[in-house]
């Protein structure tokens, strides 16, 4: 197990997301460093997949830009290694199971350990399918970050009880992308999860403004912002690091203003 959970102590966590190799290697390295400087608690790095079925158009396009840059799975590890020379910000990967499966569960988890990647978010690996990767992850001290959604219902208990690192609470049904409306029962959903576990929760999917981040951080222990940052990268390209650092600072301030951090 990693020490991801500790990050959520005494303050609300902010977890931004970028796609690796979008638009190129150096920019991604700088983006990770900029996110850390701007005040990210954990940086979530996406390993591109040809068919990202949980992702909306913004992240799909980022994956395509990364493929155009020639991204390989190994490239992503090299990006993290390069960033590691300048930052020790905790990093988790978001990718699809086939990418990990093809690399080999053991080899992948060991490579994560080597690069200091603390956790894996795999949207197409539900609770029932995690057993095949769990031994490799445990061995390497890597958390499998589970997702809990507004439709999880009776499944929440078993997912929450088995969780480590943090729990990714999906804010709304469907796919990633900026949204202005969220599932109205998020407070109850988080309360329900907390019945079964002390593992911290972070809300993501669709959150894109500092104000929304503040609200979500008020409900859960942290907030994840993906598409909004990827969108900045799309617009700013090589100038993205400066722009996302500014954005991250504004979200940091907003998140810090929300009350009720765990102790």
């Amino acid at each position: 197990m990693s020490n991801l959970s500790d990050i959520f102590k005494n303050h609300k966590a902010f977890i931004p997301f970028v796609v690796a190799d979008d638009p190129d290697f150096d920019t991604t390295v700088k983006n990770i460093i900029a996110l850390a400087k701007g005040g990210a608690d954990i940086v979530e790095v996406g390993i591109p997949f040809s068919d990202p079925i949980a992702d909306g158009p913004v992240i799909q396009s980022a994956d395509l830009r990364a493929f155009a840059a020639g991204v390989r799975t190994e490239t992503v590890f090299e990006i993290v290694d390069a960033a590691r020379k300048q930052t020790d910000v905790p990093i988790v990967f978001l990718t699809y199971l086939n990418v990990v499966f093809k690399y080999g569960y053991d080899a992948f988890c060991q490579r994560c350990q080597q690069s200091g990647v603390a956790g894996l978010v795999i949207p197409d690996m539900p609770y029932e399918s995690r057993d095949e990767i769990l031994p490799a992850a445990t061995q390497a001290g890597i958390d499998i970050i589970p997702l809990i959604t507004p439709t999880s219902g009776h499944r929440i208990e078993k997912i929450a009880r088995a969780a480590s690192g943090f729990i990714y609470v999906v804010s709304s049904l469907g796919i990633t992308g900026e949204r202005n409306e969220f599932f109205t029962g998020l407070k109850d959903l988080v309360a329900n999860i907390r019945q079964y576990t002390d593992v911290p929760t972070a809300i993501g999917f669709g959150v894109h403004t500092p104000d929304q981040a503040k609200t979500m951080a008020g409900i859960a222990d942290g907030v994840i912002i993906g598409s909004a940052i990827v969108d900045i990268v799309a617009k700013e390209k090589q100038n993205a690091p400066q722009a996302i650092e500014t954005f991250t600072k504004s979200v940091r301030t907003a998140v810090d203003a929300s009350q009720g951090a765990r102790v």
Partner: protein
Amino acid sequence: MTKLKAEAQKTRAGIYAGTYGGQYIPETLMTELEKVDHAFHTLKDDPAFKAELHDLLVNYANRPSLLYYAKNMTKDLGGAKIYLKREDLNHTGAHKINNVIGQALLAKHLGKKRLIAETGAGQHGVATATIAALFGMECEIFMGKEDTDRQKLNVYRMELLGAKVHPVTTGSMVLKDAINAALQEWATRSEDTFYVMGSAVGPYPFPEIVKHFQSVISKESKAQLKAKENTLPDMVVACVGGGSNAIGSFADYIDDPSVRLVGVEAAGKGVNTDQTAATIERGSVGIFHGMKSLFLQNEDGQINPVYSISAGLDYPGVGPEHAALAKEGHAQYVGITDDESVQAFEYIAKQEGIVAAIESCHAIAYVEKIAPTMRKDQIIVCTLSGRGDKDVASIAKYKGVDIDE
């Protein structure tokens, strides 16, 4: 108990078909999949449900389909006796309706008001739109933009039936991308919506559900051949896209060791080219579209763009039970190219007066090759999965013939 039966029972328990199958799908859909699983397993042997299904198959879909003795082909090829299982004569013109009726009944019992589906050639979309019309349900179909272009007739047919057709413009804009889009739509709206999976693919329990409802093909063919010839076939041949008509054609023969089962994949420009959809011959184990199975992919696990002249076979994966059958040697899988299938399209039209779907013509092309090598007292049952009206325009184009569409 054979090894395969043991594997199959594990699938039934909702775990894994050994190496293949499983449930690799976003959490958002898991509760819904549990509901589908429960509904299927409680209803499939329920007498009232079975009666309802049977009534629709007989009185609406025109079952049983004929087992037709292809006298001219048999004579011309000079080897095994050839029987064609005529799924092309079903209402809507393909085997797809068997599965759609079954799943739409499940949807009805689950209280769903809306059906969504992916489609490649458009046959599954047409079947789903048809049953949605019959049941008074809403219907939305996801179809790759490439396929809406090459199967225009079926797009119009679906719209005529009251469905909304969404051309999918992501990825390579074919069947795989249509499944992605349909899964995304289902994850967004499952409350009132049932995803009618069109082939024996996807997360458990879909491969099992599709097999169950398509098994009517082999149940009938076995009884029909027994009545005509009082024997089992020596070989059963069917084309394989995701594998629904093939698994349905094989199902009742899987435990008959004397029956050779042959699945015919689309080799596109050739099994050894990059422009192919021959998943079993060229693919490797991977996890995609909810299942562990064989996929055409690169060494990083990125799914490859695939190619076939046939929109219905243009898929980078295959149903998990076919991957298992191939591995265990219970079935054999071969590739047929675009050229060979187009030749078969013309051959069966001229020999038997049947315009067959280009998908089915892949199976026919294999029969043309294998029948002459077999004895005259041997029997092949080949599934004609669909009729070919939808393909006439694109085959004409392939042949360089200019017809006004």
